[in-house]
């Protein structure tokens, strides 16, 4: 069976043999390079995917000129953005203006650490993995606010303020949905959560409350990543481009990339929590079926689930109109939060009684 785990072990022993004490350092560098290249590839793939999904929903063909079936379109776009001049407005706060895209990007990179990509492929299996993700992802709002404030542009400023209100409120709902799974699996560690889904994914085992938690999670993370229909921070028909109005060239590309990386991470987390991460589809006591499912590599399972969720979020984006600011907050505080709280109680009750499958 194909597995990254063996490779990793082989490389590790090889390095240990050759370099001895520097192994850790070299491994860190390798991981860093891998993470950055994963970022680049993910960015390219996700942008292309978004454009293709949008095109097909909108009865168009999407990019189809650069490369076979338009596959290299995003590469060309990236090259264009690299060559573009990065303008800084005259009265902008230059330090913060330049820092903001990197901050947003760094947050996205840090979030990558506890994600389990396949069986045994995880950068850092921290024992508070879920907490770490919720904590770090809130830092990205600082980058957005920084960008909006330092641009010295009223549209950017309005967008940043909206984004602040939005992300801070929707983190609550996302947190409650995550807590549901934490309660069920009894651990904050990503590997433990995945292991707890050995006999079936939580989405199927947890009755309706987990289903509700999943829906709330998807809505909340759509809002957290500033995606339509919650893209108020960059509502183009109202605020032109919102917080990144004044950004151009590579700085803009970093924002753009960070948005897609964030989507990937929240979807990966959603897949891990609700759909078992890299865990193949297992049904308790069906050993033959489970064995068959194990033949599909775990990385394929993980990527498949994550991209399914990403597709779902893209589908939202190209279907719905945008909400208004007060409606957005109403949705959170009047609907999602009360439902989420009640739901958490239900899930806890289920977990205590052991009613889940």
């Amino acid at each position, binding site marked *: 069976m194909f597995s990254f785990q063996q490779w990793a072990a082989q490389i590790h022993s090889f390095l240990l043999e050759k370099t001895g004490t520097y192994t850790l350092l070299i491994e860190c560098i390798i991981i860093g390079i891998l993470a950055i290249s994963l970022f680049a590839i993910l960015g390219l793939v996700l942008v292309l995917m978004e454009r293709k999904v949008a095109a097909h929903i909108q009865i168009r063909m999407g990019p189809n000129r650069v490369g076979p079936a338009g596959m290299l379109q995003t590469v060309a776009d990236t090259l264009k953005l690299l060559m573009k001049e990065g303008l800084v407005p005259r009265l902008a706060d230059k330090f913060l203006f330049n820092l903001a895209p990197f901050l947003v990007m760094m947050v996205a990179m840090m979030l990558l650490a506890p994600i389990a990509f396949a069986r045994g492929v995880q950068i850092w299996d921290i024992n508070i993995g879920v907490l770490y993700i919720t904590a770090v992802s809130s830092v990205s709002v600082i980058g957005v606010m920084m960008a909006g404030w330092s641009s010295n542009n*009223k549209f950017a400023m*309005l967008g940043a303020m909206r984004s602040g209100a939005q992300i801070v409120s929707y983190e609550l709902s996302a947190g409650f949905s995550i807590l549901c799974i934490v309660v069920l699996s009894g651990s904050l560690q990503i590997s433990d959560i995945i292991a707890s889904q050995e006999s079936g994914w939580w989405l199927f085992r947890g009755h309706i409350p987990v289903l509700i938690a999943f829906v709330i999670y998807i809505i909340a993370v759509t809002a957290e990543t500033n995606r*339509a229909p919650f893209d108020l921070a960059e509502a183009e028909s*109202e605020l032109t481009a919102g917080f990144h109005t004044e950004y151009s060239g590579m700085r803009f590309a970093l924002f753009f990339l960070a948005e897609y990386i964030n989507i990937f991470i929240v979807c990966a987390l959603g897949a891990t929590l609700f759909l078992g991460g890299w865990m193949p589809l297992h049904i308790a006591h069906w050993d033959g079926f489970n064995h068959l499912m194990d033949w599909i590599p775990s990385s394929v399972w993980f990527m498949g689930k994550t991209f399914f969720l990403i597709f779902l979020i893209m589908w939202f984006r190209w279907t*719905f109109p945008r*909400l208004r*600011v007060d409606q957005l907050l109403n949705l959170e505080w009047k609907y999602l939060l009360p439902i989420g709280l009640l739901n958490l109680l239900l899930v806890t009750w289920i977990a205590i009684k052991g009613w889940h499958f």
Partner: protein
Amino acid sequence: MYAETQIISSSENNPQLKEGQLVINVGPQHPATHGVLHLVITLEGETIVKIEPHLGYIHRSIEKMSESLSYRQFIYVTSRMDYLSAHINNLGCALCVEKGMQIEVPARAQAIRIIMSELTRIASHELWIGAMAMDLGAMTPFFYTFRERETINDIMEQTCGARLTMNYMVPGGVMYDLHPEFVTRVRAFITQFKDKVTELEDLVTNNIIFRNRTEGIGILSKEDAISFGCTGPVARASGVDGDIRKRFPYTGYEQLDFEQCLHQAGDSFARYIVRIREMYQSIRIIEQLIDQIPEGDFQAKTKAVIKLPKGEFYTRVETARGELGVYIISEGGTTPYRIKYRSPGFSNLSALDHMARGSKIGDLMATMGTLDLVIPDIDR
């Protein structure tokens, strides 16, 4: 005589602004203004305190231009005013010239004119629905409505020779006869339209986000609609029965059976619904005519050089946006002495400030979107 316009200002350098207020410029380059409309908006947080339109970015002074063009030539310029209902603009001008010349238009030409006008109206409303949904953040309906609009454009292209600025109307009738395939293609379009327009129900009309964004937003009362001179769907959504086709019928609308779509709510959703229902009425009008277009001439015989008698002539037609008035003052020569186009968008725009005050910026997009502003129509 007048105070200098301050385009960009904040509370620091503008003593008129109160603490906490800020001024933003929506336009002339802004995704929501569909053209080069420039709105200077005073905000308090997200709430709109005042809207001040600045016009004229594409003012071509069509009125002045028309003073030097002959009565045959000036018609084509009006296609460039409200380019989405170019046919109806042309029709208004042709009717005004015919009124001055006192010529009778053949029955066939009249039927063709009505069918073309109604097709134009459907095309315009289709575009509007797409563009308005896009203003509210839903990108996809735009493409679905454009698919239907494209069919109309193709029909227009086949018969009139152009897709947008047709210049199909001439004084005394239409420029050429219908294309042989016209009738079958229009029938096919009607089937397609009835099939596909229901998609909008799922995507836009019943969508809870759309409903929340438009219901109760940008309310224009009946009294205000009259006072601001609003016409067209904007006025009808407020309950003003001002459909020119019904109240002051022209070119044979009086023989047709159709309803004037009225709504009493006066909010953005009412304007949306009125336009949707109007498309169905347009289809109804086309259905009545398409099978019995009278035979005969498509153009009345006119002299090569048209001279209007001395006097004043005013005609009004119902474009997709409202009442277009063409006011020609003739001194008896080959060119008009003065032409005034009473454009619907200009009056409708003046109500924007009243409608949007006190609402959020997001609501402004819903209000402005449902006014269906076409900027060349406002600027002329």
